[in-house]
């Protein structure tokens, strides 16, 4: 709804049958009790898009295993057969870290911004009645 503040007051009575939020917004915009609290430049309507979140910077995984492996290499002149135990430990650590990262990404009870945007593109908020 691209309606300015002044027109909103006229529509206030029509929106009364709608939600409580509309009433509150109308009250904030009204000039009846002194200056209005809100003076919106853009229309007070939601976009059909969600802002993408900044990737949280994690830490380097498996650094200890890597350093152990490198120490073993230094001692045994980069011989992988001698250091096979450290190698297998490193591999298990890497796999665990990868699984953890994958699991963490998708869950936590929230839609990812990308998924939310695709859904909103398919089912957008109606801004005007066609």
């Amino acid at each position, binding site marked *: 709804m691209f309606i300015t503040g002044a027109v909103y007051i006229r529509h206030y009575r029509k929106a009364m049958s709608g939600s409580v939020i509309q009433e509150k917004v109308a009250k904030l915009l009204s000039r009846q009790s002194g200056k209005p609290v809100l003076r919106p430049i853009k229309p007070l309507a939601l976009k059909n898009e969600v802002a993408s979140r900044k990737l949280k910077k994690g830490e*380097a995984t*498996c650094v200890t295993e*890597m350093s152990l492996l*490198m120490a073993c*290499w230094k001692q045994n002149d980069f011989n992988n057969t001698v250091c096979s135990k450290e190698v297998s430990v490193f591999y298990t650590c890497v796999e665990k870290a990868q699984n953890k*990262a994958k699991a963490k990404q998708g869950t936590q009870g929230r839609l990812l911004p990308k998924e939310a945007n695709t859904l909103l593109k398919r089912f957008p908020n109606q801004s005007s009645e066609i």
Partner: protein
Amino acid sequence: MAASVRHLLKPWTPSLCLVRWSRYNSYYLDPDPSKDARVPDSELSPEQKELQELKTVRRIKAALSSDTSSPFSDPLMSKFINMMMQDGSKILARGIMTQPREEIECSPHSVFQQALENCKPIIGLASVQKGGKSYQVPVPLTDNRRGFLAMKWMITECRDNKHRRTHMYEKLSQELLAAFANEGNVVKRKHDLHRMAEANRAYAHYRWW
């Protein structure tokens, strides 16, 4: 002016061609051409039974022309042949790959696998920018990446660093045998990568994944 107009008369060809992307939806399952796919139901666990049922219901991608149901087909070998192939001449690449088998006596299949296994790097280097300067940071690699690097090194080594007059299959067989014994240039290249990673181990904390 005639030249600029002439290009409009050419038949339209897409300027972008899909080389690595798959146009299939993730709903589609991969085809399984092996003859052993039909196992009697009594031997399957419940998850495998579910998987079999899913295969009867779900849509399946079209099989590639290189997919065979023969027991001699090896996915690693197919991948290597594809990487070696130039200009789409699969027959030539396959011919080159089958010839070293005659040179290598005992079980060329396992020799090939063991040689590539010996060429796979364990840690790779990634370029990370920090404070305006880029550092080579030691990084764990995925299995796919490691296999790819091993095969790529093998092919480049065979192509570039050999005598001009030797055939590809000879160079390949020599390199594969050397890699099987943990010698040769490819294994040396792997060790060089490990050495560089070890030298840069101080920068390991610059990684954030």
